[in-house]
């Protein structure tokens, strides 16, 4: 070890580039990135899917080589002596790198052997880790039988058997329930404070940036910015406001605000619309919503996401997509489009969905919020008629799914997780295929394909294979495919998972417009903030419904002197804790 390595930053990246070959194309994953991570603190690699976070993590772990540039960890060139670095860092890949057919204890033993932890130190170290992760009661359980949150903690414990100097965590919180997510952050805070460990933490959740000491903000293989997240947020101070107008609905307000002069960003938050201005000047009601009565504007706290949106807007010129896909249906009465009563689904002993009931009205946006494994996807599959219910009643668009699944399916548009598109087919071929699947043909089919290409601005990409599209365009195409047959009901399964904030805004603008035109929308998400876009939502955990209502009301229950602005995540955690307390009392 050279003396200089003690003073070197934990990680130093110097104009690193890396590209991959994908078929005949060259895809750039990292484009001349330079950054440094300080010792003893959490550095967040923040960015949407496809930003290059995982590639950068792998470069730092010595699992990939850079095409050009230099990566140093603790002052050591990783390309020259990867083993010297790997002896001092620990890396938890996505999906945690656990052996599912080994028990908790056996996984720990394996990693202790691999990391050369002496037997004499193990008992103490295991006890500490098991206590920290709360896994002590489960040492004999196979890793494959653990819940998502427990797997995440076991993965972390395995990387920590030998306390590393640098800890790399690749998207450890994706799809994990908020309670586990909060616990993970507590562990990380503990590690940086007491063991002075350096942690690199990658995530697509922008709200996690605020927990990091420093962030590297990544987008489309470039580094958009680096530094203290507080500086990013401070830069936006005085620019965020909440707007309410008694006479207008929240979606109409948002629609008008999005195109108002001086407004950079407008999103629905509860019953109000949150806006971010181009400059730090308080807007007037006349400037924002000319002609509207009863407008109240209050200042709001800036968020990290605002600065990301500002950076993205600065990069690409402001562009507003056509917001209203022409009204799909007209003149139908409001009714209960989706009725779920005492729905239960068992897989052998396991109850995936446990006696849930809810109703969705015409033109509503209804959310199913919960972590991976909460039973959202199972509920969804039953609603689409893809999986029979074990018990309970299911009516969609007036059809009982037990007796008339096929006609009900004809009224439903379904956008699956990860955008189930045919990657080898072009945009136009995908549209043609999905419209044929719904029995569209001839002039009508051509008209719908032209509509989709125009409406979703896919015309320029019409002959591009869908696997080669950027993520945001894949999402558009998937939505277009689901809308080809003009469904009355739209099912969206994790629709905005991993896409960048601009693409997410654009997506929700379209969904809002659809809802305004009378389409009923049911959406699942594990993304707590996404709940804000829903009119009403239910929160699911372990197959049960914990609560139902407006996002605003669910949060309001927690509002108190020491928590003036509770988030959706706070509400979720409080509900889970209540449910646990109740089940303990029973």
């Amino acid at each position, binding site marked *: 070890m050279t003396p200089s390595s003690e003073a070197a930053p934990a990680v130093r990246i110097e104009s690193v580039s890396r590209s991959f070959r994908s078929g005949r194309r060259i895809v750039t994953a990292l484009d001349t990135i330079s950054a440094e991570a300080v010792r003893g603190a959490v550095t967040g690699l923040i960015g949407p899917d496809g930003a290059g976070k995982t590639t950068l993590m792998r470069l730092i772990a010595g699992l990939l080589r850079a095409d050009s540039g230099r990566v140093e960890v603790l002052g050591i060139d990783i390309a020259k002596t990867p083993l010297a670095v790997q002896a001092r860092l620990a890396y938890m890949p996505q999906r945690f790198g656990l052996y*599912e057919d080994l028990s908790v204890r056996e996984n720990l033993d394996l990693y202790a052997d691999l990391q050369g932890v002496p037997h004499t130190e193990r008992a103490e170290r295991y006890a500490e880790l098991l206590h920290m992760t709360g896994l002590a009661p489960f040492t004999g359980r196979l890793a494959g039988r653990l819940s998502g949150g427990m797997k995440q903690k076991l993965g972390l414990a395995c990387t920590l058997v030998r306390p590393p100097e640098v800890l790399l965590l690749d998207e450890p919180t994706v799809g994990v329930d908020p309670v586990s997510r909060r616990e993970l952050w507590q562990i990380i805070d503990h590690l940086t404070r007491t063991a002075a460990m350096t942690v690199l933490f990658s995530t697509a959740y922008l709200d996690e940036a605020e927990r990091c000491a420093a962030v590297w903000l990544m987008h489309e293989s470039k580094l958009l910015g680096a530094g203290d997240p507080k500086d990013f947020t401070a830069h936006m101070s005085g620019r965020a406001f909440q707007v309410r107008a008694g006479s207008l609905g929240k979606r109409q307000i948002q629609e008008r605000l999005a195109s108002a002069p001086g407004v950079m960003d407008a999103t629905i938050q509860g019953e109000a619309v949150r806006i971010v201005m181009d400059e730090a000047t308080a807007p007037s009601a006349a400037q924002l919503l000319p002609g509207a009565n009863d407008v109240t504007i209050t200042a709001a706290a800036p968020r990290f996401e605002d600065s990301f949106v500002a950076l993205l807007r600065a990069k690409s010129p402001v562009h507003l997509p056509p917001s209203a896909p022409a009204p799909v249906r007209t003149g139908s009465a409001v009714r209960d489009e989706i009725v779920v009563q005492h729905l239960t689904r068992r897989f052998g002993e396991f109850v995936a969905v446990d006696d849930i009931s809810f109703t969705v009205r015409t033109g509503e946006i209804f959310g199913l919020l919960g972590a991976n494994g909460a039973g959202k996807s199972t509920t969804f599959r039953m609603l689409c008629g893809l999986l029979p219910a074990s018990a309970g009643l299911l009516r969609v668009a007036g059809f009982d799914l037990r007796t008339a699944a096929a006609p009900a399916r004809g009224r439903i548009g379904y956008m699956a997780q990860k955008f189930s598109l045919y990657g080898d087919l072009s945009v136009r071929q995908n549209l043609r295929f999905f419209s044929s699947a719904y029995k569209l043909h001839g002039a009508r089919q051509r008209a719908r394909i032209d509509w989709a290409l125009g409406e979703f601005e896919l015309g320029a990409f019409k002959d591009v294979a869908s696997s080669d599209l950027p993520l945001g365009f894949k999402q558009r195409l998937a939505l277009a495919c689901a809308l080809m047959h003009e469904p009355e009901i739209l099912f969206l399964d994790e629709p905005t998972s991993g896409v960048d904030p601009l693409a997410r805004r654009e997506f929700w603008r379209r969904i809002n417009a659809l809802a305004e035109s009378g389409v009923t929308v049911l959406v699942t998400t594990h993304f707590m903030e996404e709940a804000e876009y829903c009119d009403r939502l239910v929160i699911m955990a372990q197959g049960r419904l914990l609560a139902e209502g407006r996002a605003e009301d669910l949060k309001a229950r927690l509002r108190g002197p020491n928590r003036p602005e509770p988030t959706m995540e706070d509400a979720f955690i409080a509900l889970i804790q209540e449910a646990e307390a109740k089940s303990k009392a029973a």
Partner: protein
Amino acid sequence: MSSVNIKFLLRLRGLLRKEFLQIMRDPSAIAIAFLLPAILLLLFGYGVSLDARNVPLALVVEQPTALAADFASQFERSPYFKPRRFANIHAAEAAMDAREVEGIVWLRSDFVRQAMHGGPALIGVLVNGVDANNARLVEGYIQQVWIKWLGAQATVTGHPAAVPVDTQQRVWFNPAVQSRDYLMPGLIGLIMTLTGALLTALVIAREWEHGTMEALMATPLAIREILTAKLIPYFVLGMGGMAASVTIAVFLFGVPLHGSLCVLALSSALFLLATLGMGLLISTFARNQFVAGQIAITSTFLPALILSGFIFDIGSMPKAIQVITYIVPARYFVAILQSLFLAGDIWVIIVPNTLGLLVMAVIFLGTARLIARKRLD
């Protein structure tokens, strides 16, 4: 230095124990090592035979006489044939067209008269030539029956047999002329090719799929440790499969084993190292189990089936193809196995082929070691 070695042993022990636990909990590896060879041996052993037995044969006797009946009964007694009688040649031909019979033996009306006068007693023989191999076998068998009968007649009637040469056949190395005895050793070589390559390729691909390989690579393990830890358990498992296969061949199918077990064990070990090396090589680029399985079957099993000399004689292949057979490890192993099972420790065969296996093992394991990187690209 010693602390380095202790850590190395600790890491190796950790990986081996993990591998052992995985094998015990997920029985697919055991299935590949033991069940697959057993099933293939049973299938091939009972299903594939290059012998003709119970061949359906049409007998057309135009003029039933005692002599003709005696000749026909020769076919009924033969284990090779299952004769059916037809009144005339047309009915027999129709049966052959329908593939109800594989051949026709036609005794014309003047057959008896000719035979009694010691002249050339002609019989008509028609053989279905669709399957040429089978046709030649049937033809030969019919001829044997015919000669045998003529000989018997000669002693009865006092006329010398009307066959110019007295044929005497003796089959070396496989005196029972059982194709099973000849096929089994080759089959074992073939099966062990598949098992060896498939085991390692699949097991490593599974680690890629589950993301555990990425986690392993980020630990201070050296790539040779990862490879060694994969090689040892599956070598043991493969040798177990080999022992099971030999046991099945010898005790269930009664194939003789003339050579020494020692040579068998040594050559099997070398061969297994070569095929495990092929599996490791496949696993360096095949990162999901489906692709790994496909590649293992097409790049190891099929060449071993066609180019090992197991079914097709290498000597009669075109020169260019013969050259290719030298990079098929099964070629050397099949030669050794056939020698060990049917003849014994024939050193002129065993020594060069064992050297061939050694070279193959070094090439495949060496290439795998050179190509494998502790990186994801």
